[in-house]
């Protein structure tokens, strides 16, 4: 392998990135833009979920109960209705996400200590909001019944401050405030840093479309030299983002960074090698930029989104999908980013993932070089 050939390709590619302003802006700022977009879109705190109440009991107790349920900022009492027909209309129009139905025997059963007869209907097409309403109504109802029972016992002369059947104390380590952003953003970072894979797939397809690849094939440059020369500039661009993105996450979103930055930088370089070699693989097989773009989304970005454990735990995926996720560099890198940002762990724990990334990178590059022929058809 000739270093001169590799550097010639690399230099040419860097000129291309630097001199085409649109390319420069895209490769430098797309990851940041994606991070901001997704961080805001995906970490919306649910509040003021509209619910309706159908109160068959119409007692003072049930009215007090409804008041208690909707006193906070989580649930909003959108309407009090009188019939199931009205309930259906509200749900169908999407005006409420959940309906609380209070049994006619509510007051009687409560004071007879027979439990709280309640029914909740949720809009199953939006289980997120519906589930939220169910949880919150449940917590409020529990608070309410505890209060009622405490009052009852005190009126019977039993000394009790507050009735708490279970005293469960949860501590969330590594993310003590349980902010969803703290957990999500390192995951998102692992995803957006893979963006240069797309650029490298496109640049290969661009040369093919533009006819310059034919010219390169007529020169003595070898396949490996060509592919490595193409990868290096995008690894460099990726490393600029490895600095830019964590700085943005720390300053803007106040994400803790508990690990070592040099370690993060080094492991990120290996991740970039792996994910960019995946992009090269796509570029080798696709004849046009349009098809390279489509395939990149199909095999790099959508799996990177759904299968790497950023949003959905890998452990709960079917076995086949779990196997597939092992071949995605993002799966291993998501563990590394979360580990370094939040847990602050070091290479002693992260080494298997690092080795895996390296193996993936070498394998993808080797397959790409093997299938890349210096022939036109």
């Amino acid at each position, binding site marked *: 392998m000739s270093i001169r050939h590799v550097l010639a390709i690399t230099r*040419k590619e860097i*000129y291309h990135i630097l001199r085409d302003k649109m390319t420069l802006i895209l490769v430098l700022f797309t990851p940041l833009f994606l991070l901001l977009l997704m961080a805001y879109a995906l970490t919306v705190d649910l509040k003021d979920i509209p619910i309706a109440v159908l109160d068959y009991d119409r007692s003072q107790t049930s009215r007090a109960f409804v008041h208690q349920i909707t006193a906070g900022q989580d649930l909003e009492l959108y309407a009090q209705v009188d019939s199931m027909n009205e309930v259906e209309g509200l749900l169908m129009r999407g005006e409420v996400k959940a309906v609380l139905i209070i049994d006619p025997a509510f007051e009687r059963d409560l004071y007879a200590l027979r439990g709280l007869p309640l029914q909740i209907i949720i809009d199953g097409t939006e289980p997120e909001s519906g589930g939220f309403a169910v949880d919150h109504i449940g917590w409020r109802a529990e608070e309410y019944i505890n209060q009622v029972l405490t009052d009852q016992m005190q009126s019977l002369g039993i000394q009790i401050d507050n009735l708490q059947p279970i005293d469960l104390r949860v501590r969330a380590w590594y993310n003590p405030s349980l902010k969803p952003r703290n957990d999500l953003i390192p995951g998102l970072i692992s995803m957006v840093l893979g963006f240069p894979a797309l650029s490298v797939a496109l640049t290969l397809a661009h040369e093919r479309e533009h006819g310059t690849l034919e010219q390169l094939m*007529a020169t003595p440059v070898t396949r490996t030299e060509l592919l490595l020369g193409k990868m290096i500039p995008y690894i460099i661009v990726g490393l600029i983002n490895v600095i830019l993105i964590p700085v943005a996450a720390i300053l803007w979103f106040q994400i803790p960074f508990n690990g070592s930055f040099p370690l993060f930088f080094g492991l990120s370089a290996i991740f970039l090698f792996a994910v960019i070699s995946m992009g090269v693989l796509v570029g080798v097989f696709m004849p046009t930029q349009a098809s390279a773009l489509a395939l990149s989304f199909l095999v790099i970005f959508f799996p990177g989104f759904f299968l790497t454990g950023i949003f959905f735990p890998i452990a709960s995926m079917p076995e086949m999908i779990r196997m597939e996720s092992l071949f995605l560099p993002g799966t291993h890198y998501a563990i590394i980013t979360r580990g370094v940002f939040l847990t602050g762990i070091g290479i002693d724990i992260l080494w298997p993932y690092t080795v895996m990334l390296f193996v993936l990178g070498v394998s993808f590059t080797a397959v790409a070089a093997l299938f890349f022929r210096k022939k036109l058809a």
Partner: protein
Amino acid sequence: MAYPDSEEVSTDIPSQPIIETHELTRDYKKTRAVDALDLSIQSGELFGLVGPDGAGKTTTLRLLAGLLNITSGSAQVAGYDLASQAEAIKPKIGYMAQEFSLYNELTVVENLGFFADLYDVPRSELSQRMDRLLAFAGLTEFQNRRADKLSGGMQKKLALASTLIHEPDILLLDEPTTGVDPVSRREFWNILTDLHLDGTTILVSTPYMDEADRCSLVGLLYAGKLVTCAEPKQIRAQVEGDLLEIKTDDWQAAHSLIESLPGVLEVQTYGESLHVLVDSADERMPEIQIAIEENGLTCRHARQAPARMEEAFISLIHRMEV
């Protein structure tokens, strides 16, 4: 098809041909682009490959540049076997694709430097070679201009300079002047002639017959086969019959009239004049003139003209198609 002319050439120069193909064949999915091509080009030749669109010119050049797999047959380029030693051939050749694309974001000098790196041009010689090529291509004053800011003609000359940076023994040029203005086209051919005189072997495909006339040897490709291969003057001599140039007051009426006359092989329109190919000028010229007058047209001008490459080419093609 063996022509006596091609044998004549090879006996003149007894050395081993620098490009030699034997029944070279290349199929695409449904079509045979190059069909059992036997080509023999001596070192130092300026070989023009002509033929209609789709005749297999581009495929032939791509095969010789090692860019396509051979379906059957064999070929030797610069002493190496094309099928098994394609990579060894690459440093020896300079290949310019039909739609040669330069790297637009790179300047003239950077484009040259890029190819110099890929061809391992010794660094000590690089600046000297670049200066010479820039002067040669008339690009010295534009050396720091980006490739996409050059005119079409200058881009072609830069492309040629890029394929020359490693001083290849063989140049394979696929329609290098298509889409270039006549002045640039002439300049480009002056450069090719200089290279030819320096001893570089050049295989150039072209759709322009005036360019074919400037080659030392012309091969006519038709449906993937080499139909004829000879010096330009011999090709011109192969035209059967004589060429008449006739101008009337209504060329459209005259065209259909003359076409229907006996002994007329071919009528082509050149502006308002007609080029008429006949079996014998002495016999047909008076007949045509009489027919024109009888049909109420006026013959303004009629003379016998020397056959040109263009007529030779078209008549050869027509002979193939009949």
